[in-house]
């Protein structure tokens, strides 16, 4: 089975966000594999171990994205592809990303493509389903379980807490939700092996794309931080008094009761 994982690097969840010159400051920030994409990597490895084949992780990014690809290889993926857009793309959006991936997959044979259901930075959740439409393959989002039996795929899909039991077939694109699995940590031998696994680097020119094809359809005109919250009010006293005062404040001051 040919399995692909779409992966994005994101800020570590612990990072504080600062803005300089109108953009999010990236200097000094720790980057990780987007947590939802980690579920995708883990699931890809599990499915390969069960059904055979190989796992290729694909990212669109810059030179530094190699680190997250190596982590995925250390977890157990077989090959990695970095589509480096650093020199070619000043701006892009989900339309752009999808166009690049569509071009990448044009000459590939794929049975299963996995992605995170959302990235924790821009949080659009668009690229997976957009790509499935371009490739004209079945797509199930926010999956929490997957069993493949021949061409038939049985999936649990999270729908705001309910579980839909879904049946579909390969080729297929899925986006992964929390609860699907527990992503493994790379082992030391895994990390050593990862250094020797193939990592192919491509640029836009290698993908038979014109500038027009990747022209974004949206534009960010401003980025700002939420206003600082004023210090809250600590309610003192015995529990019974605290509770009475709280309810009074919620009713009369905050007007939410």
């Amino acid at each position, binding site marked *: 089975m040919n399995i692909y994982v779409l992966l994005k690097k994101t800020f570590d*969840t*612990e990072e*504080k*966000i600062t*803005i300089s010159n109108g953009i*999010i400051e990236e200097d000094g920030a720790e980057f990780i594999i987007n947590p939802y994409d980690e579920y995708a990597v883990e699931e890809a490895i599990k499915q390969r171990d069960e059904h055979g084949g190989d796992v290729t992780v694909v990212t669109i990014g810059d030179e530094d994205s190699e680190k997250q690809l190596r982590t995925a290889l250390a977890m157990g993926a077989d090959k990695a592809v970095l589509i480096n857009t650093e020199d070619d793309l000043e701006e892009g959006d*989900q*339309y752009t990303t999808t166009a690049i991936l569509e071009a990448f997959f044009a000459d590939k044979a794929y049975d299963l493509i996995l992605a995170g259901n959302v990235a*924790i*930075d821009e*949080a*659009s*959740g*668009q690229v*997976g*389903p*957009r790509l499935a*439409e371009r490739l004209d393959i*079945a*797509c199930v*989002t*926010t999956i929490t379980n997957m069993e493949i039996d021949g061409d038939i795929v049985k999936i649990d899909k999270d*729908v*705001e*807490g*309910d*579980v*839909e*039991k879904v*049946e*579909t077939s390969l080729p297929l694109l899925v986006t992964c939700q*929390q609860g699907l699995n527990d992503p493994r940590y790379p082992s030391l031998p895994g990390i050593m092996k990862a250094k020797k696994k193939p990592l192919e680097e491509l640029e836009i020119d290698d993908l038979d794309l014109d500038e027009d094809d990747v*022209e*974004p*359809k*949206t*534009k*960010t*005109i*401003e*980025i*700002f*931080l*939420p206003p600082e*919250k004023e210090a*809250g*009010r*600590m*309610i003192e006293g015995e*529990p019974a008094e*605290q*509770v*009475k005062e*709280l*309810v009074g*404040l*919620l009713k009369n001051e*905050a007007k*939410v*009761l």
Partner: protein
Amino acid sequence: MSDKLLVIGETKDGELRNVSFEAVAAAKKMNSDGEVIGLLCGHGNLEAQAKEMIYYGADRVITVVHEKLEAYTSEGYSQAALAVIDDVSPDVIIMGHTSVGKDLSPKLASRLQTGLISDVTDIEIVGDQTVFTRPIYSGKAFEKKVITDGIIFATIRPNNLPALERDDARYGEITSQAVDIGDLRTVIKDVIRKASEGVDLSEANVIIAGGRGVKSAEGFKPLYELAELLGGAVGASRGACDAEYCDYSLQIGQTGKVVTPDLYIAVGISGAIQHLAGMSNSKVIVAINKDPESNIFNVADYGIVGDLFDIIPMLIEEVKQLKQSQGV
């Protein structure tokens, strides 16, 4: 301007979701002279839901009724929506950023080769541009975005853009459109209800969230009681989910749900940065925790340092009394 603004409505258990009314209001706000056209897909009679959409501001509603649209599937609904979009040629498409909206909107945008701005919390008209505000980095920052080319397409986060007042004197045309729905590659075999009891977390006005401090699944019971009294929903921190006090579907945070209720009561939650990312934009935040150094107090409007097992039962009684005095 005679723009056409298509609002894709969404029903749950036979009723229109609140976010669909908010989407109608958003469309109106974008162009008060435009024609707001509701779209409803389903199987069976959609007349009542279509009327509701009109009472809340839609000018007319198109329904697509087909046995393959009984339950939402992305393929079925996208075939129906694309047929209507092809017919109407809207300038704007708006829908809720719900499970359905998140699934359907990128697929439609991809077919239509348009941009899409997801998870919008505010809309402004600046000159002749529609500017959308949306949270990024789980609400640690915000961006303002515009569509530069093609149909203006956005999904709106529930509970952020107010719906219009219901006016049942409003009248609008309801037409049904026949659409051929082809074979579906994905079939829903069964639905297991887990979270749908009571109020939906992402649309709740009041959320009572428990953390590790709640100590057990049993400890969550009073939180459910309080939530029910306030017409709200129960949420949880990752710690509480990891400890199996409750299901992951309740998790609020960077992974998990991002919520913005009017009132968020954090009970026994320390306030890790990942949790704050999921709730810090709530309108009023109450923190109850025995550790005065807890991070949660930094974002709280009102804080009580104390034992939640003393405080919560008293709070339930106090709220009961208040509700009685309000005649509820």
